[in-house]
């Protein structure tokens, strides 16, 4: 019961956070962060010790079957870690936002636990239907947050989000139903199943639904709107942790009914195209949150690439990318939120020279970008693993490496260009950015992404995930 309990705890405590938030958003923030500690501890135990945790009977159709192995453990770890840090961050931010709107933060904290708990549940649940249910819980909770605290035309954005995310979720559900009819009740990767035989319809349904969730090229259009207009703490969770669920679903379910090995090649090209496309678009954006949103599209290209390469290195890279992008992008969105709070702008062109305004902020944001660009942070390990996977896949087909190098370069261009435009150049302000809980939370997030790069943390992290994946029945 311990996994279920730690998934339900944030939801239960958010009912308590609701009245608390009416008194102080700080109390509600601390409570929401604290509610994630059991989940964080469980997933950290699995990821860093390599011992899986399992509960439920797994007989016939057990709804309450949960299993955490290092592979999905990394996803849960990311959700819990980023969720807790963002909860701390959200207190000053939501106070500011509620003040702007002339209301309170109660709805935010009421839905927060459901959102994060739902996400974690979706990764921990072994039963396919429960995976879907948890995704729905997370979606609906986040829907309310956008509706109540979003920016711009938030009703329109909410509808857009509702429609797109449900198109994705329902396609996935249809795929799950087809799997159910074949007698597959559980996430195949979690129960160490072998390949389930080709099923192109189920494969395409889950794939397409997941691609919509991940905002892959062509079905990405909702993401820049939603992530830019959502309240920033939510953006800091939506972008890194919610969309990546698509990659997990493809890896853990769809690939088990892959119709033909040759299909992966098209998926690889498509993933590269997504990564380049997102990077190009991010480079052009003037709205900082929109810029980060497009950068998420690009990073989802990386994640999809890891899955599409369809080898143990690629799967390991996908999990690591989820972590590194999760931490990096959370830092960046929190930075954008800090600007919204204290500079009252998202326009990149109005920034410039902000290093001196708050050096710690600049340092953290640089680390955030380093995670995306794969330099000296946990992002570097993701990038190395992904590249090894790429080399395993393509071998001596040397031409294929050129687009891959372009992906890395395109990321570098928007990352370092944005740093320059925002933080360097002649300063325009005399004052100093204030030190608040938001700043502390984002600096801590950045530091964690650096710590995870160092041994022994990186050693056990990568090796445990890799050993689980390489032993998976998928490659039989």
């Amino acid at each position, binding site marked *: 019961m311990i996994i279920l309990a730690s998934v339900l705890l944030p939801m239960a405590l958010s009912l308590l956070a609701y009245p608390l938030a009416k008194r102080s958003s700080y109390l509600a923030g601390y409570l929401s962060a604290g509610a994630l500690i059991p989940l964080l501890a469980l997933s950290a135990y699995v990821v860093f010790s390599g011992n899986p945790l399992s509960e439920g009977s797994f007989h016939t159709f057990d709804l309450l079957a949960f299993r955490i192995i290092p592979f999905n453990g990394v996803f849960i770890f990311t959700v819990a870690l980023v969720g807790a840090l963002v909860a701390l961050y959200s207190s000053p931010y939501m106070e500011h936002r509620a003040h702007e709107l002339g209301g309170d933060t109660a709805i935010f904290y009421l839905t927060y636990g459901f959102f994060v708990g739902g996400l974690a549940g979706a990764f921990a649940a072994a039963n396919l239907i429960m995976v879907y249910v948890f995704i729905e819980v997370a979606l609906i909770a986040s829907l309310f947050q956008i509706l109540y605290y979003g920016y711009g035309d938030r009703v329109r954005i909410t509808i857009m989000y509702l429609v797109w995310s449900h198109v994705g979720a329902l396609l996935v559900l249809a795929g799950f139903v087809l799997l159910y009819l074949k007698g597959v009740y559980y996430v195949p990767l979690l129960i160490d199943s072998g390949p389930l035989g080709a099923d192109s319809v189920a494969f395409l349904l889950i794939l397409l639904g997941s691609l919509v969730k991940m905002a892959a090229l062509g079905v990405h259009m909702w993401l820049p709107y939603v992530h830019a207009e959502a309240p920033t703490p939510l953006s800091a969770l939506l972008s890194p942790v919610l969309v990546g669920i698509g990659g997990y679903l493809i890896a853990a379910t769809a690939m088990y009914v892959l119709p033909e090995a040759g299909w992966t090649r098209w998926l690889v090209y498509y993933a590269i195209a997504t990564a380049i496309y997102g990077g190009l678009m991010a480079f052009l954006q003037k709205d900082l949150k929109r810029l980060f949103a497009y950068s998420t599209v690009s990073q989802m290209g990386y994640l999809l690439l890891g899955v599409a390469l369809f080898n143990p290195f690629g799967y390991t890279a996908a999990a690591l990318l989820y972590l590194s992008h999760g931490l990096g992008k959370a830092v960046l969105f929190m930075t954008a939120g800090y600007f919204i709070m204290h500079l009252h702008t998202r326009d990149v062109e109005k920034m410039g020279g902000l290093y001196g305004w708050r050096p710690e902020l600049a340092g953290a944001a640089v680390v955030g970008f380093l995670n995306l660009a794969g330099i000296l942070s946990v992002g570097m390990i993701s990038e190395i*693993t992904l*590249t090894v996977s790429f080399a395993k896949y393509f071998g001596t087909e040397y031409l294929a490496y050129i687009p891959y190098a372009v992906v890395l370069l395109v990321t570098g261009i928007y990352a370092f260009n944005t740093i320059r435009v925002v933080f360097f*150049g002649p300063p325009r302000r005399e004052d100093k950015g204030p030190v608040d809980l938001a700043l502390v939370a984002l600096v801590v997030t950045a530091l964690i992404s650096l710590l995870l790069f160092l041994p022994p943390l990186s050693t056990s992290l990568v090796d445990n995930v890799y050993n689980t994946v390489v032993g998976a029945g998928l490659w039989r």
Partner: protein
Amino acid sequence: MEVVLLAIFFPLITSILSLFSASEKFKAWAVTAGTFISALIATYLFLNASPGLYGWDWITAIGARIEVRLDNFSLPMGMLVAWLVAAISLYSVKYMEGDYRPGWYWFFFGFFASSMLIIVYAENLWFLLVGWEGVGLASWALIGHWYRDEFEYWVGREERVAGVPYWWTPSKAGLRAILTVRFGDAFFLVAIALFYALAGTVSLTGLKASEALRALGVVPLLFFALGPLTKSAQFPFHEWLLTAMTGPTSVSALIHAATMVKAGVYVLIVTTPIFLLVRGAELYFLVVMSLGVVTALAATLIALTAMEFKLVLAGSTAANLGIIAAATGAAGLLGLHDEHLLSTLLFFAFLHIVGHAVSKASLFMGFGAVIHEAGTRFIGEVGRLWRHMKITGVAMALSMLSLVGIPPFVGYITKDLALENVFEAGHAYHIELLAPVLYLLLFITPIYGLRLLGLTFVHGKEAEEVHEAPALMWIPYTALAIATIVLGAYFAVAVKFPLTEALVSVLAGFLTGFILYIWLPGFRSEVLSPLWNFLYRRFYLPVLYDGVLPLLYTGFAKFIYVVFDKGLFDGLYHNVLPGAFDALSRLARRLITGDINIYVLYGMVGILITLLLLLL
């Protein structure tokens, strides 16, 4: 021999410590102490360590190990790097006093040193990559150190060529550096991943013994080479190094003498014995050698026409890196035929890293003092400094003579030995053009050196209110200047004193330079001015890098944005589809008229259709 880790990481540890104090003095002295301790340990290793491999597992899945290699290259290189870093750190204490961003500077200073030492000692290529990315990042951070982009830290003046701005602010120069290096690193990373995926190992010893690597062919080697070539600023990737002069002069000294650019050629040298065995390696070595020679010549010409003190020195760095790269490539080419020669030839290439580093570190620090005291970065705005800065003048003269390769300074010996490799390879491979190009190179080199000395110290506008640099600054560079003689003598005895026809070229160049810039200054020629302009504009390559390429990139991105993102996707999903729904619902609404007769008609039609369906 785990103590080597202390040598590597001591600067980093102290630089992390420095973050926890707000005091500028503490930061400066903490990092400086760290670099000195690291230098002492490196010296201890050089004197006592037995060659071998030492290491620990890092990430088994990708074959990453924290493994160091103590051998004939890493031990002296480590000592050289550590001592140069320590000297420059000491110099920075005074030079950076009162700077507006001490936290950033001192953190990245120590970080830079540790990253470079990782590269020097690393046996495992993933471990090396950590240092590799580290020096790239640190150079970006320090080149753009003066992030407020004040005029006095620019490279170039505010003028445009073909519409492209021909000035570089620190933040722009940093961006140029990191993006150039990212380009090379992307392929470098791919190459290492290929080694791991197909040969199963990324340790240098493992790769040397790997049959699988030999069968891979030359393409991965060329991918690999892009890393060192961009990092060492080889043509056509040399532009970033020139604009990197926006950084503090101490950083320039660091980048040019001890870290970053030396990392590239150093890696070329230590991988040569491995790549020698790969099928088709001849092409790889030929590429490295040719690019080296082209870089050497192009950069020398840039140094000859540059109008900023530091730009002359930057050009000369690129030129010397070219010589080292060419010597390495040549060593590989000759080694293909006679493997016994290889280690000696590589050692010659390596020696020039030492010879150049010592001279260049001293020059940068000295000219840093000049810029500091005179308050300008342009040649010609201040002159006759000999009267005011005697110690600096002597130190600069010594280091410059060494840099441009005048006997008996160390620069002469190492450069000549390195170039002998290239001459030999030219003979062996019947590349007729090579020898004249090298002679030309040797001829021009002393001219730019004497030009800089003449225009700064001997002639020109009399400076006012200029004083000798403080002792904390002149001690490091004067010590290094003296080292150019001592090392020269040592190498002449310990290695050999080369005496070839190349010396004629050098002396002819020296004489020409002496006449033009020291003895009878003021020579002007209108005929040469188009040529001068072409060189002064650095072959107009910045037009490509700052104009054409960004324009194409932005243009392409905008095209995609307008046509696909806004047009197709946004248009389709968020305009056309909702619009179609809207139209459809309006159509449906029109059916609801409120007229009961029409509804009855609908009912009848419905019943009829149902009946029809049932019957069929």
